[in-house]
């Protein structure tokens, strides 16, 4: 699949069909994400957004169709090495015995499970926490943080290995408005620094002004929504946030 002047997309799914026991959720879906994109995948609950992302990341095997990451089949673990992933989740329990720094540090565990974390891993962790503005919380237990702070910590974990592609599955679910805005600005800065972003959400929300692509999943099919249409709908918001991408 070639887009944007013949460049190979860094993430692509082609004619993907996926079904659970209850029925088909993806019905011949194709999607390609290019380097530099800040794309959002919209859809209602149960529309198959998370399923599509998991197929794209090689975590689920489709009935038919293909998924590629960085030119390799997504099921190949090497294909996921340049990917940072922020999963959909509820708040982490305060009983989880791990500090913020430890959670971020686990993002440095790629491929091989052997060994302990070293000085370079700890330095990368400190840098990732600074990038999301939460370096001062490094020693706190992850469960003691607010939902918004936890999501930014999970982004730091995804960033700690300098990914080329950041995939976020409903990262602001249950997060207050103020935190969502800070979160959107963090993503804008990351995208501006060269990180490609694919985010799954119910609605565009505060990231609207910064998006370069909007796609929506409905009844197993994917539609590209013109950016102009989205911008019209969030016009007031864009005027309030002139720093957004145009």
């Amino acid at each position, binding site marked *: 699949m070639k887009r944007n002047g013949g460049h190979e997309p860094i993430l692509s799914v082609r004619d993907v069909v996926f079904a659970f026991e209850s029925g088909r959720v993806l019905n011949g879906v194709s999607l390609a994400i290019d380097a530099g994109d800040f794309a959002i995948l919209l859809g209602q609950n149960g529309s198959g957004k998370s399923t599509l992302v998991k197929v794209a990341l090689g975590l689920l095997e489709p009935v038919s169709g293909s998924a590629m990451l960085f030119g390799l089949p997504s099921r190949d673990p090497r294909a996921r*090495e340049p990917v940072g992933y922020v999963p959909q989740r509820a708040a982490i329990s305060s009983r989880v015995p791990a500090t913020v720094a*430890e959670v971020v540090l686990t993002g440095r*565990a790629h491929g091989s499970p052997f060994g302990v974390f070293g000085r370079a891993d700890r330095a990368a962790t400190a840098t990732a926490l600074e990038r999301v503005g939460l370096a001062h919380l490094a020693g706190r237990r992850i469960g003691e943080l607010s939902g918004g702070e936890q999501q930014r910590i999970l982004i730091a*974990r995804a960033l700690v290995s300098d990914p080329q592609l950041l995939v976020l599955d409903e990262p602001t679910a249950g997060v207050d408005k103020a935190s969502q805005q800070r979160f959107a600005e963090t993503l804008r800065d990351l995208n501006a620094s060269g990180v490609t972003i694919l985010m799954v959400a119910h609605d565009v929300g505060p990231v609207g002004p910064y998006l370069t692509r909007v796609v929506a999943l409905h009844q197993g099919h994917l539609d590209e929504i013109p950016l102009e249409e989205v911008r019209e709908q969030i016009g007031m918001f864009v005027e309030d946030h002139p720093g957004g991408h145009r």
Partner: protein
Amino acid sequence: MTFFELFWMSVVAGAAVGAAAPSIGTFVVQKRLSLIGDGIGHVAFAGVAFALWLDVSPLAAALTFAVLGAIGIDAMRRRSPEEADMGLALFFYGSIAMGVVVAQLGGSLNAGLLGILFGQVLTITTGELITIAVLAVFILGVVAGTYRGLVAVAIDEEAAVVRGLPVGALNAGLMLLTALTIGVGMRVVGILLIAAMMVLPVGIARNVVRSFKATLVTASAIGAGCAVAGIAVAYVLDTAPSGTIVLMAVAAYLVSDAFRLARRSLARGRAA
């Protein structure tokens, strides 16, 4: 002769098991599998019953059955997670029932079996001590050598899969280490109480330290401390060592929980 001169082998064996069991328990508890050690212990009991019937080494048989049980349990959990609960119950109760039947057939359903169920640390032999020490060092070594992967999977399994970690192999390895821990702990606290030594020190450590690594190290130190103190108290009070060891851990947990609640109240008071 002093207590240590009389029972140094028991103390060393207790400390080895006390340190090794929570090092596995730290990961098992985090994965919400606290009772898995108990279940594998039931399977090991069936192995011991067969060993007594066939007159082979109970420790070797317990280890073999525990490892096979761990492999079976892991396969069952992976194949049908929704049915895992009932499947595990069948596995565990079927094993202990089989153990009782085989023990009765072999004529070993007597007081001697209590030593397997609840440990006999004061009568440990040199050969058993060497086996326990080697296996405990092996368990601690594997945990240290694969800490990077184990902690990543324990904190967030889905994210670990995305990063290309061999999550299935790490989970299977953890089950095998759990099985080894059951075998190692059999002579010290017995098949029915070894799970307590995997879980309780972790609960204590979680109440007093903040990080995962500190939880692991502190839990191992607490486990070893409870084992040594429990053996000494059992000697002085003439009580059952295994029960005394576990009761020490239960008491330490209650104290640590009171400490945690007091610390939380203090923090809330300061914030108000």
